[in-house]
């Protein structure tokens, strides 16, 4: 380094490097300038100066200098290394790898560069490269523990577990017998457990078990030891020993469901889908009865039998399970039992059982011989409310929860549940207002604060939600803070709300923020490549890498990407110059709309003012010496995002991620269909159709896409170019393989589809829409098909109670179709009136019991103050100031 310089300057150069490592950038900069005064073209100095500037937030200068330095001394490994570091700091890992490789060409044994390279290769999953680099490092420095471990992990990641084991054993061969010293016992134990898990993964079960037993004294994590042992025993078919070990584990933690599952497996009594023969059920019953005697404190041992028991035995077990919990008052009881509602018949049994309990509490209540606490009735009503909510009987659910509230009006969960019932019933405004009431009862509870924010967003009260959510962020940091905390539920919910309200810019902003979080999470693994090897947390490290590999299949990412794609589709369909239309405003009068617009304007102005304030205060901090410069968002409303030239190619970016990570989601391919149809990418659209048919050919949307696709194709001009002809020939070859279309016209296929699903609303609607698409003169027929659908009571055996079959969400979709696609206001209105009858709480259809009609709640909503001044409607109704307050505060009504 700095070899070409005279001694004085060479020393200065060393100073630059040292200053960079110790973050004394100003000092380094001075030294660099001193050298450059004499040798203005010295490449390595120029590079180092650039790297130093990069750390001082002078990016563009940095790149300029580093590139210049490299140009002046292209043979210097320092210059290449610096260039790589610069790219790495900007997360341009591929470019950085290239630079490192160039640096290594000049200096192949440079350990620092090799190590940096290996980290990048792990990050980018360049696994063969990773193995090579790790091998080189080990060859250069075989006395370093980390190099052995790194080489082994590299082979493991590169799917060569056996090799990894060999390396670890070779490493163990280098150790003394009394290894490890006391301060490294944990690390060594982790390494051994990692090796054994590798043996297990490779299928060397005997060897793994043998090794485990041999190394027992050296393994510190005793629980992991036992779990590993039991897993090996079961895999080796040594079930009796396995069962005994599981019992030992249960003694340590008798609420670990996985131990029970394992124990069942040892007894040959485990089935993935929970289906058991009568004989098996009896044996399971006996097993759990004996376990319950051993593990008296366990609640799992009492809960699990409810999953496999049936009929009377289920009933008996359920009573025994539920009764004490109602007496004790366990608010989560319903969520605990809610999976049982998917088992046929169990919802009915539970209903009868709880109603009986309710009855017996009420009738026995006055004499109190049973010593039942008064709260039991409350918790029973609370359970029943959630029960009826789950069964779709919202009116009963509401009457139960109201009774519970009357009984004990101070229990917060009651208001949360009431809010949830109202949401399910379709009254989002009332739901938001009750969630807010719950929030006000405990202003120190972040969970209920978040819940109420979510309800507000669902009711499109964005401004109120923003004010409420910041009650729990750090002062002054407000919205940035939510972003920094990766608060994704909030960003998704507000993105969806903006989307509903037609504010595509801000919707996109929120969706893309979530996408950014996922990129950050991927990025975050970087530090662990070196950290975990050093700390020997190898099992956790490898698991983390595997998690990262499927990170983007997470539901939140899926939602965000789908939301962004929808925004871009809408943007493409109605470009910016036409003002964004509000979609869900059927219930709003023009004057209300005006008001909303005004509100939004005012909101914007206020926000801008606030941001200015923040800005000035932020710069104030930086002046006072602290480096706390938050870059101000140059595009807070996403207006720049909206100005994209090509919304469809933006959409395609996110679509690719969905296709890669959520290939089994219908939605992925529906979006792919929409995007590619608009892009005229016929074959890609066709691929989407085929995927839809593969996943669910009977789905109404799959049917829609199929018909739409071939209808579009048939209406296109005859192919001219070679490429078009090629596309045509592919379609011609493929069409016969689509069973729905074999030797049929599209109309016929449509009819057949109807014949298969005549009783289903959504299928009829899809057929009607396609009828109209294929032949617009058949609009009346299409309308009739929809209106002739009948809403029946569902058969009760499953989770739902005796309720009508149609879902609110579907009926809203049908309304939109009538209104926007078939464009028939009279029919749409008829539909709305009809649905208002089915969904009396729906604000969308202005049902008779919804807050849209019942203005009470709307008014209340306006008076709700953010900091806890909300008042329940009942309070408002009670004549609040009918007596002058001064003396009356003394009024007493003592309760005994």
């Amino acid at each position: 380094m700095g070899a070409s310089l005279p001694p004085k300057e060479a020393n200065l150069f060393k100073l630059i490097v040292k200053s960079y490592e110790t973050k004394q950038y100003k000092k380094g900069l001075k030294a660099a300038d001193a050298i450059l005064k004499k040798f203005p073209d010295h490449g390595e100095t120029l590079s180092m100066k650039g790297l130093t500037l990069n750390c001082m937030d002078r990016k563009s200068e940095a790149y300029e200098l580093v590139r210049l330095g490299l140009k002046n001394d292209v043979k210097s490994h320092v210059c290449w290394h610096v260039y790589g570091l610069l790219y790495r700091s900007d997360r341009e890992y591929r470019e950085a790898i290239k630079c490192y490789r160039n640096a290594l060409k000049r200096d192949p044994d440079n350990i620092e560069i090799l190590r940096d390279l290996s980290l990048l290769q792990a990050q980018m999953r360049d696994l063969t490269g990773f193995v090579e680099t790790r091998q080189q490092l080990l060859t250069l420095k075989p006395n370093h523990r980390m190099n052995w471990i790194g080489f082994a992990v590299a082979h493991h990641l590169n799917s060569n577990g056996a090799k990894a084991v060999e390396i670890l054993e070779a490493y163990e061969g280098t150790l003394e017998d009394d290894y490890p010293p006391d301060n490294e016992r944990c690390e060594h134990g982790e390494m051994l457990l990692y090796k054994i898990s590798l043996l297990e993964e490779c299928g060397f079960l005997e060897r793994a078990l043998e090794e485990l037993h041999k190394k027992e004294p050296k393994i510190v994590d005793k629980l992991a030891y036992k779990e590993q042992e039991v897993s090996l025993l079961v895999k080796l078919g040594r079930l009796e020993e396995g069962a005994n070990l599981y019992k030992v584990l249960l003694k340590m933690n008798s609420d670990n469901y996985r131990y029970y599952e394992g124990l069942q497996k040892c007894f040959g009594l485990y089935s993935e889908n929970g289906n058991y023969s009568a004989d098996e059920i009896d044996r399971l019953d006996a097993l759990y009865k004996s376990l319950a005697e051993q593990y008296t404190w366990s609640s799992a041992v009492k809960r699990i039998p409810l999953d496999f028991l049936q009929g009377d035995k289920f009933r008996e077990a359920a009573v025994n399970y539920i009764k004490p919990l109602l007496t004790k008052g366990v608010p989560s009881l319903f969520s605990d039992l809610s999976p049982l509602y998917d088992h046929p018949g169990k919802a009915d049994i539970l209903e009868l059982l709880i109603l009986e309990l309710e009855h017996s509490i009420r009738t026995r209540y006055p004499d109190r011989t049973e010593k039942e606490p008064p709260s039991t009735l409350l918790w029973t009503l609370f359970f029943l409310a959630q029960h009826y909510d789950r069964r779709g009987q919202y009116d009963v659910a509401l009457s139960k929860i109201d009774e519970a509230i009357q009984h004990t009006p101070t229990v917060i969960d009651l208001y949360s549940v009431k809010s949830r019932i109202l949401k399910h019933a379709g009254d989002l405004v009332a739901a938001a207002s009750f969630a807010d009431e719950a929030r006000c009862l405990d202003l120190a509870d972040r969970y209920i604060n978040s819940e109420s924010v979510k309800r507000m967003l669902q009711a499109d009260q964005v401004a109120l939600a923003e004010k409420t959510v910041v009650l729990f962020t750090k002062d002054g940091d407000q919205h940035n803070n939510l972003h920094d905390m990766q608060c994704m539920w909030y960003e998704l919910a507000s993105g969806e709300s903006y989307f509903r309200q037609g504010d595509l810019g801000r919707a996109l902003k929120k969706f893309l923020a979530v996408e950014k979080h996922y990129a950050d999470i991927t990025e975050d693994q970087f530090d662990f490549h070196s950290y975990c090897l050093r700390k020997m947390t190898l099992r956790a490290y490898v698991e983390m890498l595997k998690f990262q590999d499927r990170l983007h299949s997470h539901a939140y990412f899926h939602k965000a990407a789908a939301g962004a794609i929808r925004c871009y589709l809408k943007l493409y369909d109605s470009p910016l110059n036409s003002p964004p239309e509000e979609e869900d405003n059927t219930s709003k009068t023009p004057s209300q709309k005006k008001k909303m617009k005004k509100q939004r304007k005012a909101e914007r102005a206020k926000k801008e003012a606030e941001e200015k304030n923040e800005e000035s205060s932020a710069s104030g901090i930086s002046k006072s010496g602290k480096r706390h410069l938050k870059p101000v968002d140059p595009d807070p409303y996403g207006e720049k995002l909206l100005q994209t030239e090509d919304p469809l190619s933006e959409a395609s970016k996110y679509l690719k991620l969905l296709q890669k990570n959520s290939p089994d989601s219908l939605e992925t391919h529906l979006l792919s269909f929409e995007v590619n149809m608009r892009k005229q990418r016929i074959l890609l659209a066709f691929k989407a159709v085929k995927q839809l048919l593969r996943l669910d050919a009977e789905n109404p949307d799959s049917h829609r896409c199929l018909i739409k696709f071939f209808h579009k194709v048939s209406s296109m001009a005859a192919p001219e170019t070679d490429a078009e002809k090629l596309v045509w020939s592919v379609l011609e070859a493929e069409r016969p393989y689509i069973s729905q279309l074999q030797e049929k016209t599209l109309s016929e296929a449509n009819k057949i589809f109807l014949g298969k699903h005549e009783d289903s609303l959504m299928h009829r609607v899809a057929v009607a829409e396609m009828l109209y698409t294929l032949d617009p003169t058949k609009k009346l027929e299409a309308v009739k098909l929809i209106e002739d659908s009948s809403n029946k009571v569902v058969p009760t055996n499953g989770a739902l109670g005796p309720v009508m079959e149609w879902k609110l969400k579907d009926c809203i979709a049908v309304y939109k179709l009538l209104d926007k696609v078939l464009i028939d206001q009279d029919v749409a209105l008829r539909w709305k009136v009809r649905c208002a009858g089915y969904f009396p709480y729906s604000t969308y259809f202005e049902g008779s019991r919804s807050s849209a009609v019942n203005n009470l709640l709307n008014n209340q909503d306006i008076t709700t103050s953010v900091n806890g001044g909300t008042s329940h409607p009942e309070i408002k109704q009670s004549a609040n100031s009918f007596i002058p307050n001064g003396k009356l505060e003394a009024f007493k009504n003592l309760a005994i």
Partner: protein
Amino acid sequence: MGSGREVAISLDGVRDKNVMQLKKLNTVLFPVRYNDKYYADALASGEFTKLAYYSDICVGSIACRLEKKEGGAIRVYIMTLGVLAPYRGLGIGTRLLNHVLDLCSKQNIPEIYLHVQTNNEDAINFYKKFGFEITETIKNYYTNIEPPDCFVLTKFITPSQGKK
């Protein structure tokens, strides 16, 4: 845990974060809507205002105001004391009142008083059990309820000598 059958009763202070609990109780217990001063006084009284929890459910409260008499002596005025109907008869009111009486004797506060409607015999008997006496009758104290008269119930507390 103990015997397991006994349900725990506990007291907790009132703060701005949970003052809505007190408001909620008052709207159910009393036919009056209390003004902001009531809540300010209650919060200011510190330990003299408490919520009662029955197995973690808020079911009752006592709210007091500390008053300065001429000469600097302090006396306690009980603004409200109440327990939700289903939870009465479980000793929760007693627990709340005893808490305040204990505080008075610990802090050498000699006088504690309250107003009660003249026909509220249950309340009068309840307080008498704790050594309160009728010290005054105020005519037409209430404006919109019948009867409009009230008693003043007072308990004079001897300083905590003899008590531990």
